[in-house]
């Protein structure tokens, strides 16, 4: 070696200190090591803490939405006010509007108070503690059963949102003083009625089944239309995205020649997966609504937009699971004289099916929670009517779960915060179920070659 000359050669390396004692530098380095590891632990803890805070915040705000305060009243249905003609003709009875029914509830309330011997000053109209939804409920019942006119019927009415809030500790006497919608006297009445068992809090099925209600009656607002709308959209996504996604993946993975066009498709799919969701909303508005003339707020448009958003997810998952089928299977099929197409559809696709399904469910779960594009295609509209059954229902106005949450956050009554959080809990339950199915599928069918 030319480099090393005799003069260059260094004498034996100096003996270092004992291994059994750590020198100062090593101690410092080890301290730095411990600190660095701590940063990692702190980061992981912060991440998990954020998740816990998120869940706790939503659950603590929203769990009470599944409970609702009801008031049981016996209502007199006098013939002279509800059916002046006295012939039980539905069309004629329909002329009495909800304003005609309102006082009946107030009277029933007064009667109930008198019967229980409750005395409260400055109460005003005791009927105010009942939801404004109640007269409509009463009217619908009477019009559906004209024969009850003239009798006394026992009803369960929703309590007013503020009274409900009081039962859930959201409204207190202190806030009631400042609030023109509720008075401390009404809260006293609530307490008294609660003791008498006339007023009670129960599980709130209506939250899941009822349609939305206007801003003045949060107690009546439910998720029914939103759930149906979301379900319709998922149906559209499933019907369109699954076959298209699988077909596209089969082409790209099994047949596509390596050329510019294939490259273009690949780059496009990778990019579409990262395009902001709101841009898909703009696409939906411009193409499906303005150009193709599809109706606003319709699940079909939402479904189409979400299909385009979900496609990249499904394609990526499908290609991964097609790739994991070993080439030996293809060779075996080709070897017995199957055509390429037969090989793919008879052998490769069935083996890849669990992976495809898992990817599809995860894509659907993503689509279910998507909000921004739906705002642009008009799904924020206030919809009280349930859409018809499919397929006509796809074209009827509907809402969607995440959009309903957004809608409720935009309303002024604080009771809607509870509703919005409750709606999120419902949404998260759906997502957990879907992801659990995906994980189960993966566990059950996962194959190692």
């Amino acid at each position, binding site marked *: 070696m030319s480099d090393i000359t005799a003069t260059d050669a260094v004498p034996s390396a100096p003996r270092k200190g004992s291994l059994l004692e750590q020198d100062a530098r090593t101690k410092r380095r080890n301290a730095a090591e411990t600190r660095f590891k701590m940063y990692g632990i702190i980061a992981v803890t912060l991440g998990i803490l954020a998740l816990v805070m*998120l869940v706790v915040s939503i659950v603590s705000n929203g769990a009470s939405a599944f409970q609702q305060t009801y008031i049981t009243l016996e209502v007199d249905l006098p013939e002279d006010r509800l059916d002046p003609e006295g012939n039980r003709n539905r069309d004629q009875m329909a002329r009495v509007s909800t304003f005609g029914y309102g006082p009946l509830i107030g009277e029933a309330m007064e009667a109930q108070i008198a019967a229980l011997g409750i005395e409260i000053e400055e109460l005003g109209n005791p009927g105010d503690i009942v939801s404004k939804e109640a007269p409509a409920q009463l009217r619908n019942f009477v019009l559906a059963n004209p024969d009850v006119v003239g009798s006394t019927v026992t009803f369960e009415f929703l309590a007013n949102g503020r009274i409900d809030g009081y039962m859930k500790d959201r409204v207190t006497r202190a806030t009631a003083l400042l609030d023109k919608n509720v008075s401390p006297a009404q809260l006293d009445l609530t307490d008294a009625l609660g003791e008498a068992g006339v007023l009670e809090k129960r599980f709130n099925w209506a939250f899941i089944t009822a349609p939305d209600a206007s801003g003045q009656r949060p107690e009546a607002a439910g998720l029914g239309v939103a759930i149906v709308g979301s379900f319709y959209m998922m149906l559209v996504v499933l019907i369109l995205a699954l076959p298209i996604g699988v*077909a596209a993946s089969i082409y790209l993975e099994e047949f596509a020649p390596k050329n510019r066009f294939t490259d273009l498709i690949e780059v*496009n*799919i990778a990019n579409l997966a990262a395009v902001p969701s709101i*841009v898909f909303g703009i696409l939906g508005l411009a193409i499906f609504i303005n150009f193709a003339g599809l109706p606003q707020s319709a699940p079909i448009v939402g479904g189409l937009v979400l299909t*385009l958003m979900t496609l990249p997810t499904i394609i990526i998952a499908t290609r991964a699971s097609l790739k994991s089928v070993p080439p030996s299977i293809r060779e075996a099929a080709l070897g017995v004289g199957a055509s390429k197409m037969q090989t793919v559809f008879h052998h490769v696709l069935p083996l890849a099916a669990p992976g495809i399904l898992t990817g599809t469910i995860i894509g659907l779960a993503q689509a279910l929670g998507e909000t*921004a594009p739906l705002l642009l295609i008009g799904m924020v509209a206030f919809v009280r009517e349930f859409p018809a059954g499919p397929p006509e229902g796809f074209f009827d106005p509907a809402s969607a779960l995440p959009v309903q949450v957004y809608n409720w956050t935009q309303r002024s009554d604080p009771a809607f915060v509870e509703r919005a959080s409750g709606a999120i809990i419902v*949404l998260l339950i759906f997502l957990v179920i879907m992801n659990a199915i995906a994980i189960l599928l993966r566990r059950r069918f996962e194959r190692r070659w």
Partner: protein
Amino acid sequence: MPTLWLVLIILALAAVGYVVGRQRALASSGGNAKLLHSLPSYYGANVSFAVIIPAIGLLILWLLVQPAWIQNRVADMIPEGAIPEGATLGLVMSDVERVATGLNLAVEQGAMSEEDASSIRTEFTDVRQRLGEVGVALGSNVDAPVLRAAQRYREMSATGNTWMTVAVLAAALFGFVSSLAVTKAGFRARNTVERVILIMLMVAASIAVLTTLGIVLSMLFETRNFFQQYPWTSFFFGLEWAPDFRGNSNLSIIPLLWGTLYISFIALLVAVPIGLFAAIYMSEYAGPRVRSVAKPLIEILAGIPTIVYGLFALITVGPLLRDYFAMPMGLGESASSVATAGVVMGIMLIPFVSSLSDDIINAVPQAMRDGSFGLGATHSETIRQVVVPAALPGIVGAILLAASRAIGETMIVVLGAGAAAAQFDRGLGELVNPFEAMTTVTVKIVSQLTGDTDFAAPETLVAFALGLTLFVITLGLNVLALYIVRKYREQYE
């Protein structure tokens, strides 16, 4: 005939074609399937395809073209004078369409006879009231040209639909007959069917390209309309965002972009250190048990819909930051703020940074670590000086992808950041105060497109220009990130 029925007829014909085609092939070989070139089912499928594809293709084409064509013809009927002050032909045409749908509905519900619908005149009937009765609300009274145009519109649609039915059925029948004619033992049915399937697969794959094209074209088209009404220089270089629905709006992107970038910056400030350290901890230090718990938990954050984060910002993080930071420090009294949206968005981005970084750190070859350990480096020295530098391109790619997410994120900022645009004339202090409410590009896209304004007004159209800008920025970031990550992967393959 309703389109649904037409489709069902075509499908039925296809089903019949399958059976007939199969039988005909078998008959041509004297019932011996071995003499056929392909399996009998392929002959059947060939006939089905020949029925379905041309007929459905024609149907879709017809449905797309007919409304535009009719609209064009009917628009000629509206004289210049019939367009009221301040309206456009487009607005009148949408009135025409609404009246036409109203008339259809009236006939359907029996409120009007078919004859009435085509012969009523504004001179004798209050059309608005009669349509109101069947539930079609019209904004103004219907004047004569509009009603006549609407009636013409109905007539033409009806004729068009009849012709469509005839043409589509003819196409289906032609496919049926011609494909049956070639069905013989020697016919290579499998090859034909497979070629058709291959083309269908290709079409499915092209949808990704079509989607991108659709996004770009739809936005380009409306953006061009916008720039015809509003100077592009003011849009890109102005400093004020002040839409005014009486006109004379200031619609500059700069204040919105400032909000977007500021919020994204705070989000990355939260997400990058936490995500990176979490990734390092999980890939380098954590045992398999800790990893199997912590990793999925953090990844749950990525599966939570953004509306949930938005609500979290609105009801928890916003008030928290206001009560414990902004108010005591005297920096603001708003729960919606840059910091609120930024922190919550940061939480959302943690898993984006951490899972991608985790993958990338794991891809650094063990030999690198061994080399460093062999020299007597501690674990953290190895990570800081060997592993992270080796993984840096990939980590940068991950951060760019996270940044692109942050810039395009909508719901968190809609609920957490506020609606007031940054105001450059109020001085730097307010611009950089993280506890000030500030709005972003995405928030304004939502608010401009969900408002009640006229669709053709610049205040609405600006949303498309904003969308296009957003698309271009995120596309640039994505392409760059994907390129870097791909280059990095190649390095260690």
